[in-house]
């Protein structure tokens, strides 16, 4: 318990300090980039909760990013409130969506689960593109009529991004210290053994899926609150999952620090490729793809996993 406080306190304090001080020190563009980075970390944590800790790979998490963002934009417009007040609706929508899809998707295993969720993301994108009320394929801006102080919106978005990014990390961290976290990892390592010691595999997977969907929706909503414009092409982009997956892979699957380090590397490499070397965006993705292939072949536990390779029970077949 002592160890818990030693880690959690400084992280929480540093985050609070950053949230309070940084808006006074940095310009808007840098704040926006930092917010994006923190929210990407939150999303990668949520993806890792499913893939790294529960053994369920997802290729459809862009669905939750978009669901959260559209929930925020719709609620803000319909209720006439400031987006900061309607933000909590996003995780509720994301969680409900996950709970609704789970009975269907859990019929599919491994790769088929992953692609099944991708199909739902595709259905979502098609439906939103057809819906005039949601802005169709052209998209729509965030309704700011409920905002009293427009000047402070950028600062508020940044502070919320810190809260969400660090909060989601805290959620995974707390979850992994609970009996449920142990159950998740048992299911990942050996489903049969988990069943035989009385773990309700279906329910455990459901909880992980719902938390992951809710968290991703919250981070997605916070991201688009900062962007203030939402279109289906960008919100349902498969590159959201590419980012979550590659960041987690680089940093280390199934570790808390993995997505944090991975997202840092992802953003650093992106800046290096785009700004430093002046290459078009495609080359960056090619580089990341090659890197992911190399990691999956030579270091499947991620770069960090090379160092802290832990003993893992053999898988049964």
């Amino acid at each position, binding site marked *: 318990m002592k160890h818990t406080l030693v880690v959690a306190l400084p992280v929480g304090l540093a985050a609070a300090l950053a949230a309070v001080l940084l808006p006074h020190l940095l310009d808007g563009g840098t704040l926006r980039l930092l917010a994006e980075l923190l929210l990407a970390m939150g999303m990668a944590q949520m993806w890792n909760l499913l*893939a790294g800790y529960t*053994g369920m*790979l997802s*290729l459809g998490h862009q669905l939750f990013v978009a669901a959260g963002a559209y929930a925020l934009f719709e609620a803000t417009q319909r209720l006439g409130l400031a987006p900061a007040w309607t933000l909590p609706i996003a995780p509720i929508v994301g969680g409900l969506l996950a709970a609704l899809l789970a009975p*269907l998707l859990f*019929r*599919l295993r*491994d*790769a*088929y689960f*992953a*692609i*099944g969720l*991708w*199909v739902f993301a*595709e*259905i979502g994108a*098609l*439906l939103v593109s*057809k819906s005039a009320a949601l802005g169709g394929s052209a998209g729509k801006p965030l309704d700011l009529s409920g905002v009293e102080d427009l000047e402070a919106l950028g600062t508020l978005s940044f502070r919320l991004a810190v809260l969400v990014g660090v909060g989601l990390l805290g959620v995974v961290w707390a979850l992994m210290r609970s009996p449920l976290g142990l159950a998740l990892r048992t299911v990942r390592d050996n489903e049969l053994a988990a069943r035989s010691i009385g773990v309700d595999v279906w329910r455990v997977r459901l909880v992980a899926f719902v938390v992951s969907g809710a968290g991703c929706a919250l981070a997605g909503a916070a991201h688009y609150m900062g962007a203030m414009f939402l279109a289906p092409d960008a919100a349902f982009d*498969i590159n959201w999952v*590419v980012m979550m*997956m*590659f960041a987690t*892979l680089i940093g280390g*699957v199934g570790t808390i620090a993995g997505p944090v380090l991975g997202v840092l590397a992802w953003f650093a490499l992106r800046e290096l490729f785009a700004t430093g070397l002046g290459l*078009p965006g*495609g*080359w960056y*993705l*090619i580089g*990341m*793809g*090659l*890197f*992911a*292939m190399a*990691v*999956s*072949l030579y270091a*499947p536990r991620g770069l960090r996993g090379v160092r802290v390779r832990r003993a893992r029970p053999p*898988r049964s*077949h």
Partner: protein
Amino acid sequence: MDWIASVVNGALLGGLYGLFGLGLALVFGVMRLVNLAHGEFIVMGAFLGVGLVATLPQVPPMALAPVVALAGYGVGWVLQRGVVNGALRRGDALTPLMLTFGLSVVLRNGMVSLFGADPRAIDGGALTSAGVDVAGLRLGIYPLVVLAAAVLLFAALHWLLRHSETGRVMRATADAPEIARLMGVSPERVFARVTGLAIAFAMLAGFLLAQRTSFTPFSGAERMLVAFEVVIIGGLGSFWGALAGGVLLGIAQVVGQKFDSNAGALYAHGLFLLVLLFMPRGLAGERR
């Protein structure tokens, strides 16, 4: 009458969709692996076709189909021997998925960098515009030829797997790779042949589809989802189920398009949803 024409045209398109799914089903059946770059190979077949048709304008495009298929076999063989076998050896389910997903990102963006993102199509010549009247319905010759080719390929694969030495070895390797190894079979070599066949089907289907629908380097994801839905609708591990699944999906798409001009894909996804809800084992069911 219009509706009947839509159903027939959808069924004809479905032959191609069946071929999309066939490669995915074959690899999954033998290696328990889903190739997430399957769609990118379908698009690669289309780009190879564009190049071939441009360099050999005097040859009818249909005659180039075997070249595309052979190239696909080579690509698949090299892919499997070069990288995928290494990922399979690790024995966990996620590693090959990450590998093939990484590959799909590389191929997709590589094709964008090489060829640009503009939509393209292959001009199939006189064959694609010709048609016949059957019982008052106007049917394209090209879709008929493509469906016939698809059925023929399904039958050939069925024969190969059921009645040839190669097929026996493939099935044995699928059931128990380690025991097959004791019998002197090298599972790695068998896997390379299977992936070769799968990519050959994928690139051939991509080449054939490009003569009736335009494509971009980003079409791969869409094609892969179609292939995936074909496999789930047909039933995991069933080859003829994949053909039936493809035909049903093609009908759903073309009829949906008639009903709602810009959302054919939505109806295809809807069909997938219904099957998942009410027939989770697909048309043919899985015997496990």
